[in-house]
């Protein structure tokens, strides 16, 4: 069950709960990249995303005993970080471009391709930022984080048909944005 090698999530959780605090580092290293990417896409700002993920992970540690199904640790962590993102979003608004706006988080490819990809990324991130929070969340969980609708339901607490509808609307909006740029 360990696609990443090493001890299973349930084993690591048991070790942490047994008093091995340092074992929590395994969980961080295993899931931080995905959680950070998810938070960055939700918040459009890397610093805010780092805050949300750090807060979420500390919270996860504190409430680790309440993680009923350690084998589903991943969705449980996404749920906590998703809630931290919602709190951050409630405190601010995405459309304020003056200070806090998200510059695109570009990839490491180089030369012209890099510029083209960065431009495309900027376009996509702009379109993503304009989506209502719940549609952005659904799209990112589905297509960026690769969760199944069942897992998304566990993360968000929403019903699968609702999530499907949100993903569909988000796809339409993003496709429209892509088509606008010829």
């Amino acid at each position, binding site marked *: 069950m360990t696609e990443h090698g090493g001890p299973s999530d349930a084993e690591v959780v048991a070790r942490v709960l047994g008093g091995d605090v340092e074992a929590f580092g395994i969980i961080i290293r295993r899931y931080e990249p995905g959680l950070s990417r998810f938070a960055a896409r939700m918040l459009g700002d890397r610093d805010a995303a780092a805050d949300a993920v750090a807060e979420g992970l*500390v919270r996860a540690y504190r409430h680790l005993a309440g993680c009923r199904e350690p084998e589903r640790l991943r969705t449980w962590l996404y749920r906590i970080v998703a809630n931290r993102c919602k709190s951050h979003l409630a405190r601010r608004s995405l459309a304020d471009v003056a*200070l806090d706006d998200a510059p695109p988080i570009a990839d490491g490819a180089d030369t012209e391709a890099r510029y083209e990809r*960065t431009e495309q990324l900027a376009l996509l991130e702009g379109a993503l930022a304009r989506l209502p929070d719940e549609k952005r969340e659904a799209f990112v969980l589905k297509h960026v984080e690769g969760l199944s609708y069942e897992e998304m339901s566990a993360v968000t607490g929403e019903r699968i048909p609702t999530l499907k509808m949100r993903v569909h609307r988000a796809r339409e909006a993003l496709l429209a944005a892509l088509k606008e740029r010829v």
Partner: protein
Amino acid sequence: MMDPRVQQVLDGELPVTALPPELADEVARLEGAAALLAVAPAADARLEARVMAAIRRRAPGPVLRVLQWLSAPRSVTLRFRPVWSLAVVAVFAAVALFPADEPGPVLAADEGVAQFVARFPGARSVDVAGSFNDWRAGEVHLRDDDHDGVWRAAVVLPAGEHEYMFIVDGERWVADPLAGRYVADGFGRENSLIFVRPLAP
């Protein structure tokens, strides 16, 4: 309105071969977009250190450990909620989220933090200069630690209105594309305007 078959393909309910070429193109574009968005940002090494510092400050003592062991999911007969001890952890964790070696600046009541962010792929350096530092180029540097072309700086400034511009590679003066407010600089270009507010307590 998108053709429902495109949604079905993307939801894995229909093979892409069932689509006419123009709809298959829509699927490809959306999958390409998702792949682009899925490129992970560079790992933040400080994040693990930050979280572990917060956690180690309050490593559970023997009592809490026993309670946690008792309340762990594998114990199906006992559901014990050590609410009081978790509350204690919560207070300390909140304080410790920023390790003591990174205290940050102490701000005066009439100071705030301005965030400067700009995308200059391929730039060797990006500075910001403005009415807040006598327009000295080469003093406030933006950083692009992960070399993704996005440059950032956080600067403590007096609350109020400031004009500024970015200086790319030490010579090219560029208005901030994200500023949203611009004012003619009298030299044929436009400065960006920023309003800094006192940081809320």
